């Protein structure tokens, strides 16, 4: 069983739609939960992170974590064509001397159609 599972999609929705992206995980040692956005031929950029169960909102983006179910979600409201990218969930566990190990999901390729 993979430590982190993410539906790879692809996902295509019309502009203005609400988008829901999801990941499940199996390792209870994960301490931080992140969503990265990756545009084509670019490095991942951190979109949101949280460390506790519940919701965290940032503009049109809401990250949700349910530690009891080992499930995280990212919601995008009023989606825009500029949101078209690959979204990667990532979980973080400390390794040695403070360095973090990030375990990524496979990524979901999202296209927002004008």
């Amino acid at each position, binding site marked *: 069983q993979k430590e*982190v599972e*993410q539906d*790879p999609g692809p996902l295509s929705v019309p502009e203005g739609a609400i988008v829901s992206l999801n990941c499940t995980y199996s390792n209870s040692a994960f*301490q*931080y*939960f*992140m969503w990265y956005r990756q545009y084509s*031929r*670019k*490095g*991942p*950029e*951190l979109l949101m*992170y949280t*460390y506790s169960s519940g919701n965290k909102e940032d503009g049109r983006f809401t990250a949700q974590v349910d530690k009891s179910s080992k499930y995280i979600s990212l919601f995008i409201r009023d989606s825009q064509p500029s949101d078209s990218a690959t979204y*990667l969930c*990532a979980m*973080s566990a*400390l*390794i*040695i*001397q*403070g*360095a*973090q*190990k*990030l*375990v*990524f*999901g*496979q*990524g979901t390729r999202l296209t927002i159609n004008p």
Partner: protein
Amino acid sequence: NAGVTQTPKFRILKIGQSMTLQCTQDMNHNYMYWYRQDPGMGLKLIYYSVGAGITDKGEVPNGYNVSRSTTEDFPLRLELAAPSQTSVYFCASSYSTGGGNTIYFGEGSWLTVV
């Protein structure tokens, strides 16, 4: 502020050749990482470093070597390149033991082994 800089951006290698991917960060981060990303997959940790002179293996270290002689630089060496090493390589750095908001990625190096 350049952040994390990787060179080269693109490279084609023949089987059995060797090369070094360069990574430099100008943020005075202690922690540095190398990840690889295969098509449709999340990123996997190759090696990491917690400071100058200290490195350790990640999930997929076979076929690679690293060194960390300065805080700024963390080169990744590929010895005897194999087709399985065709991938996109990302260098990253972070400055604290905190959550994922501290990890910064470079723009990636696309490597093809033929």
